């Protein structure tokens, strides 16, 4: 059984059909990429699957269980993590704390115990601090261990979001344009990072414009155009697909 099954998924905003009748499956352990021209509905698809939007029609199943319309926090409990195309970093916190927030569901969140500084809580927090620092090292943010989030450059914040998502120990990780706005050497680092994440057993779903990175990393690729599924297959299959070539060259009939 596939890890994620998406069937006939649609969402309409007023008259705009942002995603229309899209179906695909994602197997556990793969790197799956979603590509398509600007406005094709890639981020909307992510927002649907991660619970930020509620679909108008269609179904989403995780491990066979319907998750369409579930809240993001309910999906977080099922091991779904994501990053954002437009950064959603908490600028009122330090970099390390941003990563620590990712572990939210694994901690004792009791208000009273926190206010009275229960020793078990402080011990767990100290461990978490180590763990978060380890994750920052993993994504290549060793230089920012004691930085405030609002003092970090764009490329570092992109990776900070990845570290926060990893702190959730997700099964399924959605990365929304992790290399957007990065220079070529940073893009290579992110490429390698995604590889390492996938190797650690996390299923990665990727929206990305950098075709070299997509072709290099992905086991399977979904092509969206005007909210519809244009093609799906391996990198080689997609590259040969005449519809895909037409869409990317703008040669619409």
């Amino acid at each position, binding site marked *: 059984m596939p890890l994620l099954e998406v069937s006939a998924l649609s969402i309409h*905003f007023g008259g705009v059909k942002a995603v229309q009748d899209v179906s695909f499956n994602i197997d556990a352990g793969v790197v799956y990429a979603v590509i398509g021209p600007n406005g094709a509905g890639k*981020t909307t698809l992510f*927002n649907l699957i991660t619970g*930020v939007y509620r679909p108008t029609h269609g179904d989403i199943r995780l491990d066979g269980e319907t998750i369409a319309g579930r809240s993001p926090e309910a999906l977080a409990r099922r091991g779904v993590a994501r990053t*954002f195309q*437009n950064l*959603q970093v908490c600028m009122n916190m330090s970099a390390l704390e941003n990563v620590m927030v990712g572990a939210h569901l694994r901690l004792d969140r009791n208000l009273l115990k926190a206010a009275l500084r229960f020793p078990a809580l402080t011990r767990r927090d100290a461990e978490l601090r180590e763990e978060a620092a380890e994750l920052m090292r993993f994504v290549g943010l060793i230089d920012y261990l004691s930085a405030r989030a609002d003092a970090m450059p764009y490329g570092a914040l992109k990776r900070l979001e990845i570290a926060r998502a990893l702190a959730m120990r997700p099964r399924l990780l959605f990365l929304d344009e992790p290399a957007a706005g990065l220079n070529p050497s940073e893009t290579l680092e992110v490429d390698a990072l995604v590889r390492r994440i996938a190797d650690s057993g996390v299923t990665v779903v990727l929206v990305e414009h950098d075709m070299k990175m997509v072709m290099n990393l992905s086991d399977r690729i979904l092509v969206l155009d005007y909210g519809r599924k244009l093609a799906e297959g391996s990198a080689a299959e997609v590259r040969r697909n005449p519809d895909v070539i037409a869409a990317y060259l703008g040669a619409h009939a």
Partner: protein
Amino acid sequence: MLAQFLQFLFSGITVGATYALAALGFTLIYNASNVINFAQGEFIMLGGMLAVFFAQSGLPLPAAMLLAILVPAGVGVLIEKLAIEPVKGAETVSLIIITIGASLVIRGLAAVGFGKGTFSLPAFSGETPIDVLGATLMPQSLWVLGVTAAAVGALWYFFNYSLAGKAMLATACNRMAAQLVGIDTNGVLFLSFALSAGMGALGGILIAPLTLTAYDVGVMLGLKGFVAAVLGGLGNGLGAVVGGLLVGLIEALGAGYISSAYKDAIPFVLILLILFFMPRGLFGARLTERV
């Protein structure tokens, strides 16, 4: 029975017109800047008090009224230039506190300048009540409704047919896009404060002959205007007018039939009910968040 109901209806709609003008003021500024201007009530107070002051100092009533609109409009512009423009992009709380600070300054100056007594403005055309099916209607009520309708009409015309009005609508819709097509969004902000202060002052002048006025009437009038704006769906002009009339009406009926001691509480019970059951108000837009 009918006479009593009509009586409540008249007084409700009359005071409702003032709330409507205040609510329009909130709406104008909110659309231009996302600021909820807690000094709005003070413009209402200034309108009434200045009209009394200018009339007492010998000016003919129309001239006194005109000045009592222009001076608050100037004060509104001053607040915008000195206190709102310099802190653009500040947190909501900071902006709220700035406008509250401004309202305290205005109220304090009014108390020092005019004293803490109550004042009355002569009615525009006599005090002889008109009998309508057993209920009495003051001629001033007709003035309030007529002038309010004219002001709303003028505003509607301004937004639909003038370039400045359209620029304001565009800015309300999308500030960044408006800036990109060359609209002077600072000018829009300036204009919205002037207009909204002028509207508030007009409401204050119109209602002053009916309710008396004092340096501290602005607090309640302003807050009720705010309730009206929320009821209409914050940011919606038509909603503000309808909301204002409704708040006035519900308040008058509630005070008449339920409890006059709790008259002032009625709009605030209303705001809680609105927030619980129809948070977008009567005409508020549905928004989708982009992430």
